[in-house]
């Protein structure tokens, strides 16, 4: 019994027929004739396309200028030092330092007494605990 011809086999035979028939050579010669005269665009077309390209072209993107020497150096130094955040912190410290330097020593003593007395700490004779108390209790 002869096997049934599948679609795949039929297609393969068709392709083989397409390749081997004399008409294939004829067709190839027609294609060769057409390919030998490859159409080229006229100068007018190239000019028109080029003109369209320039009209439709987006403007060049602005580049960040880092070439100016003095500007670049100052800019670099500023950011190397930490920028505005560090400058703010430095300014704050400066203000605190200067104000502390100008303050009178008496007022500083008052502040210290106020703090340490309120917290119950006494380094003088009026200590809450004697050394004996600590030894006994310890």
């Amino acid at each position, binding site marked *: 019994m002869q096997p049934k011809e599948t679609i795949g086999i039929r297609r393969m035979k068709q392709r083989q027929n397409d390749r081997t028939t004399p008409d294939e050579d*004829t067709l190839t010669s027609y294609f060769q004739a057409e390919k030998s*005269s490859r159409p080229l665009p006229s100068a007018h*077309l190239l000019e028109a396309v080029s003109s369209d*390209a320039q009209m439709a072209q*987006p*403007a060049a993107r602005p580049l960040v200028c880092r070439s100016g020497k003095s500007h670049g150096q100052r800019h670099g130094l500023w950011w190397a030092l930490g920028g505005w955040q560090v400058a703010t912190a430095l300014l704050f410290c400066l203000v605190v330092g200067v104000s502390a330097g100008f303050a009178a020593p008496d007022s500083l003593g008052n502040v210290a007494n106020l703090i340490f007395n309120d917290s119950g700490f006494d380094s003088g004779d009026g200590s809450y605990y004697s050394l004996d108390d600590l030894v006994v209790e310890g």
Partner: protein
Amino acid sequence: MPFDAMNELSDDVLLVLYANGDRAAAGALTNRLTPLVFSLAFRLLGDQAEAEDIAQEAMLRLWKIAPNWRQGEAKVTTWLYRIVSNLCTDRHRRRKGLGLDEVAEPRDPTPSVERQMQDQDRARALRSALEGLPERQRQAVVMRHLEELPNPEIAQILGVSIEAVESLISRGKRQLKATLCSLKKPLGLEE
């Protein structure tokens, strides 16, 4: 960037440079792609003026899409061929089929006058026969056998499977053979 160095760059890269305002990239793309686009349009339409219109329109669309071009998604040429084939389909819908005498004369720089005339006749006959093919078959045959594109790329351009492209080409060639067979003797192809 110097113009010569542009020849080394891919279409994708040139398009990005163009979108960034590089004038030399525009020139390089124009010189590289316009001949390809025009050639396909001319072979699909058989008319110089119409092919020039189509080529200019396709290139204009490329310039416009350049800022939004997504690199690596598709080949620039594949995208352009697709635009050209769609524009040619629109043109074909608007006009009736041309007769043999109305098909544009091909330009042929071969030295022998006799051979030149024979080739011109063959080319003219082929164009006329191509005009008689259904739109998709004509596009597939032209892309495969005249523009020499690979089947997978033709499939992408036409938006069909590779098997469908093979089928279109096979059917198109069969009809071309039948049409051109009758012209074998007058064109010097008969033994």
